[in-house]
């Protein structure tokens, strides 16, 4: 690809970007959010048209049919996965490359089985894809690439939802594929992945190609500098302080899911003033239910929740009143109202608290002032506070939501993947903000699927597996391997 330029309205998303990838290589594309990585990949894939520049492919694509403008021989796994939960696994596999107007389910399934065997995967093809775990979905995505006979495979942040062990397995599959002659382009912001598994790396910043390096000739520090275009904000070392009063005490908490199964099994957890507690675990281990129960969104079937020594009343409003704040998992769906202005979104969740409310009335001027400081706190880029939230990119929305959770007297911060979609500097900033709130007397519970992130930012880490919560034994509190074992229930 050379000289690729793409504009959205007045914004130049990509400015004359060159990218050359050798066949059989594992090539990394890194950069901050909004640097243009995904846009570039979508252009290469063919679902987005570019304004200027040329794309040349040195692969034999004869005999491969595609539709919808997708370039033959290229496959892409997007950040949020392309699995449609209502369809079966087999339907998901063949969608877009069905091989004829009439479906041949038996032949397709036979071929699917052989593809899965080649990768060492197993699937029940007639089941609904909604039942797949994130790992299963990731595996299905890879099979989709093989089904399409993709010679060039684009993986956009493939490990965002995976446990360390599953990520390792994924990279082994990738290396296997590269060994068979496939070309792999990995879009990521996790530098360890780049350094360990890739051969070359291209750095994008602000829609421009900054540099390209052989991985063997560079290091993490240099890459980080190239990505942000300056020095990273350094985290101040945590000061040791005696733990304060108890903010949250969860005892024997049990939650039942839709089908009557126990999604939380007798969980005990305590957080004290000034403490940042990380919850490690593979997606779907019960973190979601734990956060929802503490926040009051779901009712536990047994057990007790105490806030600052007092039993918590049922329902979200009473918890918000007592200072419980949330950075929700799905920012689009749970965190903002996209068609509302930033101003209006500033009060969401805090609408009954001062200064947003005066009695039962809304205070628009106070809301505007708060919105300003929320937007400023983590440098949310926006086109005006009266613009709709939908005009912000995902990363900027996340900054706004994180700042909002910290703005009005937080006592207990529940953060679900607070750094999701954030670049390195913004991640540092958000954690710094949480730390400051905790230093002022709050406590934080942080759920992340990225163990390294938790190890870096939390005072103490507990692990969840299959609805149970376990605490690392003395001396192993920050031991990566020990926590990793707890995450998969190996102890």
């Amino acid at each position, binding site marked *: 690809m050379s000289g690729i330029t793409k504009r959205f309205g007045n914004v130049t998303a990509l400015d004359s970007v060159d990218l050359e990838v050798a066949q059989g290589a594992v090539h990394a594309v890194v950069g901050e959010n909004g640097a243009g990585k995904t846009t570039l990949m979508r252009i290469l894939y063919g679902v987005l048209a570019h304004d200027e520049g040329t794309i040349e492919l040195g692969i034999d694509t004869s005999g491969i049919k595609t539709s919808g403008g997708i370039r033959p021989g290229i496959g892409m796994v997007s950040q949020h996965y392309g699995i449609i939960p209502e369809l079966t696994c087999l339907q998901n596999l063949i969608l877009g490359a069905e091989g004829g107007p009439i479906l041949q389910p038996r032949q397709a399934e036979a071929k699917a089985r052989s593809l899965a065997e080649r990768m060492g995967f197993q699937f029940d093809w007639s089941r609904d894809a909604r039942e797949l775990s994130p790992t299963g979905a990731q595996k299905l995505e890879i099979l989709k690439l093989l089904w399409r006979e993709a010679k060039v495979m684009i993986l956009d942040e493939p490990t965002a939802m995976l446990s360390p062990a599953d990520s390792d397995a994924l990279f082994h599959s990738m290396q296997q594929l590269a060994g068979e002659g496939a070309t792999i382009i990995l879009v990521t912001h996790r530098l360890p992945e780049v350094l360990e598994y890739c051969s070359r790396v291209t750095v994008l910043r602000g829609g421009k190609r900054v540099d390209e390096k052989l991985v063997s000739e560079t290091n993490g520090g240099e890459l980080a500098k190239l990505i942000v275009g300056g020095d990273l904000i350094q985290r101040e070392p945590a000061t040791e302080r005696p733990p304060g009063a108890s903010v949250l005490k969860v005892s024997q908490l049990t939650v039942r899911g839709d089908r009557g199964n126990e999604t939380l099994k007798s969980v005990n957890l305590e957080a004290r003033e000034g403490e940042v507690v990380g919850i490690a675990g593979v997606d779907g281990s019960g973190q979601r239910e734990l956060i929802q129960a503490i926040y*009051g969104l779901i009712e536990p079937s047994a057990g007790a929740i105490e806030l600052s020594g007092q039993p918590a009343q049922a329902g*979200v409003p009473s*918890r918000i009143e007592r200072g419980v704040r949330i950075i*929700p998992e799905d920012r689009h769906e749970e*965190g903002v109202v996209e068609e509302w202005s930033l101003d209006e979104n500033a*009060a969401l969740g805090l609408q*009954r608290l001062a200064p947003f409310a005066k009695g039962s009335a*809304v205070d628009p001027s106070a809301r505007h002032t708060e919105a300003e400081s929320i937007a400023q706190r983590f440098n949310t880029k926006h086109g005006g506070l009266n*613009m709709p939230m939908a*005009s912000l990119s995902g990363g900027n929305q996340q900054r706004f939501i994180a700042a909002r959770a910290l703005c009005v007297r937080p006592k207990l911060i529940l953060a679900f993947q607070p750094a999701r979609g954030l670049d390195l500097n913004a991640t540092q900033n958000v954690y710094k903000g949480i730390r400051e709130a905790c230093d002022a007397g709050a406590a934080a519970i942080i759920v992340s699927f990225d163990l390294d992130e938790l190890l870096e930012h939390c005072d103490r880490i507990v692990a969840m597996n299959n609805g149970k919560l376990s605490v690392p034994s003395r001396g192993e509190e920050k031991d990566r391997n020990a926590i990793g074992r707890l995450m998969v229930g190996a102890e």
Partner: protein
Amino acid sequence: MNWRLVALILGAVGLFAVAIMLAGASPIGTVVVLLKGSFGSARALSGTLRETTPLLMLGLAVFLALRAGLFNIGAEGQFLVGALACAVVALRFPGLVGIMLGSLFGAICGAVWALPAGLIKAYRNGHEVITTIMLNNVAAFLTSMLVAGPFKGPNQQFRSTSSIAPETHIPNLSLGPVDVSYALLIGVVGAVILSRWLKRSVSGYELQAVGANPTAAKVAGVSVAQVTVRAMVVSGAISGLAGAFHVLAFEGRFYESFSPGFGFNALGVALLAGGNAYGVLPASLLFGALEKGGTVLATNGIPKGITFYILGLLILVAAAIRYRRVKVVA
């Protein structure tokens, strides 16, 4: 302004002109007749304002539900039930007491008629468009059955109640030669109250949060089910009140096929109104004018159906202007 929008507007104007020319009239002449018939004289204006009154009240009802994310197509049925209930009560209690009790009873019955749709939406996730359409049909049959039987006026030839006493009528305010019912003024005050409430109260904020993104509203500590039921019931009460006012201010009795489709027009009014309750005022006036002007058109040999046709095109253009795509800028 983008070219797509221009194309749509030109297309709509073109479709309008073609239809008029098919009828053998000139498009511009038709518009002139429409305007004259609705605003041209004191009598025409009085007629337009009369048509506007139920549309304004019902428009507010539908608008409120719309802000909570509910399509209250059931305004029609709630209007009918409220009107009949009011007529029955007002016949028993003449005078101001009858006006008060009739309005109250009409509002209550409208609310009760909306309740199942709200409950089914909130707790069973059954789509309110379907339930309210069903309730409309049931309301039409039920009221028609009742005015044929127990509530039929003794001297009425057709299915109708007796007429209420003159002193039970909501009076008119005469502004020079133009008659304005107090019912219309109450509707205007209602628009002001509704707009202020939605903008300046926490409960209004929460209601609109439910309408715009129920999941986010739930995370923000709003009980989506409760808000849904409440919005539907209040919307039903306003619709029922509109029916009561229609009896008390204009018709003086309830009869079969009492509503010429006010409820459906009200949905158009609410959609055209945009994001602010004040928008219901001009939108209902426009619909009222088309309704009044349409009857004049009919006497000029242009079928009245043309007004519906114009409304449909108008709704499309208005919606297209409002729902322009938001661009990501940051």
